[in-house]
């Protein structure tokens, strides 16, 4: 004999997703134990979910991406931002910059070391110091990059599809990508909380900013 009435689709869906409160879950389980039709339906839904979890993300071919960025039309000017484009700003400032450069050059040719010359030299130094600073700090930057990467990666027991599903159930934007899981816009603490029931393992959870 079938126990209780047949649950609605969304009720069975919440059951499959583990979102039902304990009492309702027990009622649905009792029903499923006695109703072959609903039990079969739930099994199909679980099988469909498992198949979808194995689906791999697709990658836009690079040539298509290039076509997109190369062929962007002009943005409508009348409604753009504050009505002033970067091009306009550059166009307006260019004559001023040219005059300033000429003045600085003339002062330097004179060999004088007055305040204007010092300001020009300062500007040159500032411009040149960027690449130098970069090369001096390259090792540091690499180390920082590695630290950042380790801060963005966590390890949990797999499989990746099931980990991604568990994260999504907790409201995080997670996708299984091959042998790892990518989570968007989440903190380490949020990921840890969402996977609290899972043991440490070898599946990498990568937090994507």
């Amino acid at each position, binding site marked *: 004999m079938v126990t209780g009435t047949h649950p*609605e*689709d*969304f009720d*069975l*869906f*919440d059951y*499959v997703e583990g979102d039902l409160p304990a009492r309702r879950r027990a009622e649905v389980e009792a029903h*499923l134990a006695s109703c072959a039709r609903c*039990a*079969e*339906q*739930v*099994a*199909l*839904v*679980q*099988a*469909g*979910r*498992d*198949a*979808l*979890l*194995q*689906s*791999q*993300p*697709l*990658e*836009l*071919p690079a*040539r*298509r*991406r290039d*076509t*997109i*960025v190369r*062929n*962007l*039309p002009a*943005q*409508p000017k009348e*409604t*753009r*931002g*504050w009505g*002033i*484009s*970067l*091009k306009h700003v550059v166009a307006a400032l260019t004559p001023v910059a040219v005059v300033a450069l000429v003045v600085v050059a003339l002062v330097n040719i004179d060999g004088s070391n007055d305040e204007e010359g010092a300001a020009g030299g300062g500007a040159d130094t500032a411009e040149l110091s960027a690449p130098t600073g970069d090369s001096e700090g390259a090792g540091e930057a690499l180390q920082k990059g590695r630290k950042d990467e380790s801060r963005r990666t966590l390890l949990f027991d797999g499989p990746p599809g099931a980990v*991604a599903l568990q994260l*999504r159930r907790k*409201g995080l*934007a*997670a*996708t299984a990508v091959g042998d790892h899981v990518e989570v*968007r*816009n989440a903190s380490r603490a949020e990921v840890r909380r969402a996977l609290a029931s899972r043991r440490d393992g070898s599946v990498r959870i990568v937090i994507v*900013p």
Partner: protein
Amino acid sequence: MDDPDGPLVERAQKGDRRAFEQLVERHQHRLYTLAGRLLGSADEAGDAVQEAFIRAWLALPSFRRGARFSTWLHRICVNAVHDQRTKARRADPAPEIDPTDPQDAFAREELSRELQQALDQLDEDYRAAVVLYDVLGCSYAEVAELTGVAEGTVKSRIFRGRARLAEILGTTREPE
């Protein structure tokens, strides 16, 4: 909640192409996965994604701050997919995936192809629901917003879509 795309969007709204290129870089594969799984054709998916990015670029000045850029972009993509499908229906039957084309992301995996063929047989509403929820990992609220239906309907569509998909694939699991 702060939109992680916010600073780039703000620059792109002022006409900064480099900022928009970075947004393309960031969202291209997700949009292509969405379009690809909904359309089942690499070429059509590429066309839809291209169209979606162009529409987004042109509409950016009117994008209201406070809205989430990625949701807005996904919505544009869903609309572009719909238009692409209408256009393809008027032309020829859906083109076959070319398994010999190394550029074709669909061709690289047997599993993907089998799953794709099953997805192609789903009712469009069910397909959109399972692709957005199970493949892209959108929340119910996002799926509801992107498909224009209530969250209860979203759950029902995912439920039926998954069941139908399993029937097509001929795979069932033992009940837990």
